């Protein structure tokens, strides 16, 4: 049989989605379209990157131009949703939590 060399008990990353599988039941960061960000505990995901996040915190960043100084003002609004289904087509990137010893 092939691939007997890395027959390890530890789950390895063979395809990109495996990286997300390693993040199941952990808090992850999701960057969404339209300057939205999500942080939450990943309960489930699928190949479209539809996801279910628990205790999700959504951060929306809006840019406004100051009337007098013409400077760009970034304003963030946050809200918390206890359980959220995210449709995959809005997802830009998924980042696993920072881990020690990778």
């Amino acid at each position: 049989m092939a691939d007997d060399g890395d027959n390890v008990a530890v789950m390895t990353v063979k395809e990109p989605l495996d990286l997300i599988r390693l993040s199941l039941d952990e808090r992850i960061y999701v960057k969404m379209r339209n300057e939205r960000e999500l942080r939450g505990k990943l309960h489930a995901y699928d190949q479209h990157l539809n996801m279910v996040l628990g205790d999700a915190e959504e951060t929306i960043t809006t840019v406004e131009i100051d009337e007098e100084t013409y400077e760009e003002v970034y304003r963030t609004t946050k809200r918390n949703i206890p359980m959220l289904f995210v449709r995959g087509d809005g997802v830009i990137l998924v980042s696993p939590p920072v881990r020690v010893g990778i």
Partner: protein
Amino acid sequence: MFVGSSKERFVYHNTLLCLVKALQGQNITLDLRNDSYTCGQIVTVDGFMNISLCSAVYCDPQGNEFFFENLFIHGRNIRYIHIPENMSIIATIKKELNKNKETGPVKKPIAKSRKNTKALQQHMQTVASLDL
């Protein structure tokens, strides 16, 4: 049983669409792509995540509220679905998929003609005679 084309059924059985389908009959909030949101009771969900709601309230980005007896949401316009807090995700998915198994169509074994049986017998004999 999930009704739809083979592609829709594939998506239903292989993605989190089954979770959305399991929300049928519940009152939920949908966040849409154009910053509007709508609340209502889910009537049906199809394989493209198109959702029809009854007694729904639609809120446009300006904050105006509109009431609809029946409302159809195109799946592509969905950004988020707010899931009831106390729902267990994995248990719900398992329950939803098992529900289909029980009610699924029972496939009858196809009665084979004598010709087919004979051909199969001959084939098995040939295979057996092969020195594998």
